[in-house]
């Protein structure tokens, strides 16, 4: 990244953006925490970035009758970590799951709006969801290794996508992925043992390695450290920081310290609305919206 994009650059690079960004003082109506923001609420801060990998425009998600995400606009910048924070049930995970269409597995879930990955609409009817998910990988809240060996856990993705033509090549992918996830030295002597036998933190890094193995471009992480102890968390955070060099990362977290440590941009969600987006340092030191300020200062949520 070479500095922040200027206003003009942004106009040029985000030709798909149809929504004007409102950076003015928040609506007085929104002061109450429990109240939902009204439907024409405009997100505070810069939702667009110059080098966007993913561009979301007017995204709405419904679970049956429940309007879970409301008119959300957001860019995910390349080689950047964007943190999504907010109180429980505010839609951050739902939004994350939209980005690789994991919501397709939920019958009653309906998504409208436009989400583009490299200018390609991922909700296009003609688009095959399988390569999309290979491009946009996901790490879940609870470590969920397959009940297979460590080796097979990593090799699963490359195998189904035919990424390796020989056993040697597959071995190399497994070693590379485990090394990137910082797990290689811990498990290299017991690759044939079950993945469930590892500790929680190792399992989560195994899951990250498994995601990396299919060489995605974007990695989505849904509270990846919530089931881990502080030491394992520190390792995973370190890993996220290293992965940023090669991948675009979106992370949902309940820990504001974690968001502050690992992310470059932060998005604050509140009851299905994206309230504020900005540079992480700016959001945490100088939040523009009252709700954001209340949340990060710990006054609620």
């Amino acid at each position, binding site marked *: 990244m070479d500095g922040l994009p200027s206003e003009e650059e942004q106009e040029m690079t985000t030709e798909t953006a149809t929504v004007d960004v409102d950076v003015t003082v928040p609506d007085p109506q929104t002061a109450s925490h429990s109240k939902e923001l009204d439907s024409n609420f405009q997100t505070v801060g810069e939702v667009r970035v110059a080098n966007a990998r993913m561009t979301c425009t007017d995204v709405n998600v419904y679970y049956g009758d429940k309007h879970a995400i409301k008119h959300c606009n957001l860019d995910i910048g390349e080689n950047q970590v964007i943190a999504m924070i907010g109180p429980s049930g505010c839609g951050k995970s739902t939004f994350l799951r939209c980005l690789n269409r994991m919501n397709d597995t939920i019958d009653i879930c309906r998504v409208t709006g436009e989400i583009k990955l490299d200018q390609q609409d991922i909700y296009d009817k003609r688009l095959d969801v399988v390569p999309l998910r290979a491009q946009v990988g996901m790490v879940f809240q609870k470590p*969920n290794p397959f009940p297979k060996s460590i080796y097979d856990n990593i090799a699963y*993705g490359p195998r189904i996508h035919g990424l390796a033509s020989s056993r040697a090549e597959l071995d190399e992918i497994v070693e590379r992925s485990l090394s990137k996830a910082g797990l290689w030295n811990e498990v290299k002597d017991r690759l044939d043992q079950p993945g469930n036998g590892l500790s929680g933190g190792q399992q989560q890094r195994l899951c990250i390695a498994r995601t990396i193995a299919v060489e995605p471009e974007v990695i989505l992480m849904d509270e990846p450290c919530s089931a881990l102890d502080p030491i394992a968390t520190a390792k995973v955070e370190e890993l996220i920081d290293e992965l940023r060099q090669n991948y675009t990362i979106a992370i949902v977290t309940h820990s504001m310290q974690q968001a502050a440590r690992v992310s470059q941009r932060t998005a604050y969600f509140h009851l299905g609305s994206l309230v504020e987006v900005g540079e992480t340092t700016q959001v945490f030191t100088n939040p523009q919206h009252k709700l954001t300020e209340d949340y990060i200062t710990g006054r609620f949520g």
Partner: protein
Amino acid sequence: MQLSVLVFVLLGVMALAYHLGRRRSLATVGGRVGARSLHSLPSYYGFYTALWAGLPALLIAGLWVFFEGSIINSMVVQGLPSELRELPPAQLGLLMNDVNNLASGNIVSGEVDATMQRAADHLNELRSIGSTALAIAVLSIALGTASLAWRAIGPKMRARNRVEVIVSSLLVVSSLIAILTTVGIVLSVLFESFRFFQKVPVTDFLFGLEWSPQVALRADQVGASGAFGAIPLFAGTLLISFIALLVAVPVGLMSAIYLADYAGPKLRSNAKPVLEVLAGVPTVVYGFFAALTLAPAIRGVGESVGLSVSSESALAAGLVMGIMIIPFVSSLSDDVINAVPQSLRDAAYALGATRSETIRQVVLPAALPGIMGGILLAASRAIGETMIVVMAAGLSANLTANPLDSVTTVTVQIVTLLVGDQEFDSAKTLAAFALGLLLFVVTLGLNIVALHIVRKYREQYE
């Protein structure tokens, strides 16, 4: 007093005891306001009194019912003239049978003489005394124990703990009944089998290749070799069960996969009970379906392509049995497939796996132990199944692997050995117990393996 009336009266006494016990507990602490100073809730004092009123009396009544017959019988025998008392036990038994019939007004086998009439009157008299005595004893015990319990009630008495002790011992007794019954059945089968093995060597039974359980009644009888080799029966059983599993495993497993992972929630909630109805069809209905519809159809098809098909083929019985055990496979598999955590499916989907890849490579391997358990349970059900094979599989003990031939199974042979008049000292009858024992051991083994596998699998995700 009739026993049923007595039981109803006893229930009334228990209800009354409940009420009184509850009242007294409240009275000792000065009414509802003081209820908090009671150790237990007032209703526990009621239950305590009621249980003391009911249980000892019921126990006495149960013992009486159990021993009444033999006690009265021996008293009647005592009252008989001495020349009758000296009769051998078998004849005495016949005589007492007649006396019993006479007393209840049934038809008597021989001439009724004065002695018998007297004995019958004596019996009737004893019976009526007995039931009156029982009623008095039971009611006085009930009232006595209830009043003892009632007097013991006070705010310090731990009625809840005592009631729970009584309830837990009732639970122990109930489970003991089930366990002891099983043990009793096993022992009875075991002892009869021992008697069989005294007549026929174990090795002949286990490894004999010929089954022809006709025993010569006279020395000069022909055509009654009396061969008791169980191999053809087990071969037939396994052949039919194998055909059944060949039908049930693919169909059941695939329908389970469809229901668990493809069908919508609405379809699933409707289709699963319908599939389980298959398990509710009486096996005799499957049996005549196999014998009257499927077997002739198979024979017709076989003959049209030039095969000779027996009219009672293993194939027909096996196919129908396969249909019967589909619900066992599908229902259990559906449960274990559903028990595979969604997070594993999500993990596979997030790596870009398609639905069928996810099911084949992630869900099924994870669920495999449970599915195996379900299949083994279905197999033990198939091996023990009787009605379908009685009707559709035939009686001739052929040692063959040809599914178009007629074979017979262990269960069919047990049925034929025990139908009709039996003599319990002949190897022919006792063979049924030996077969039953062997069948029991085989299905028990399968069940143990299946349950072990299912349990091991359950631990995996918890």
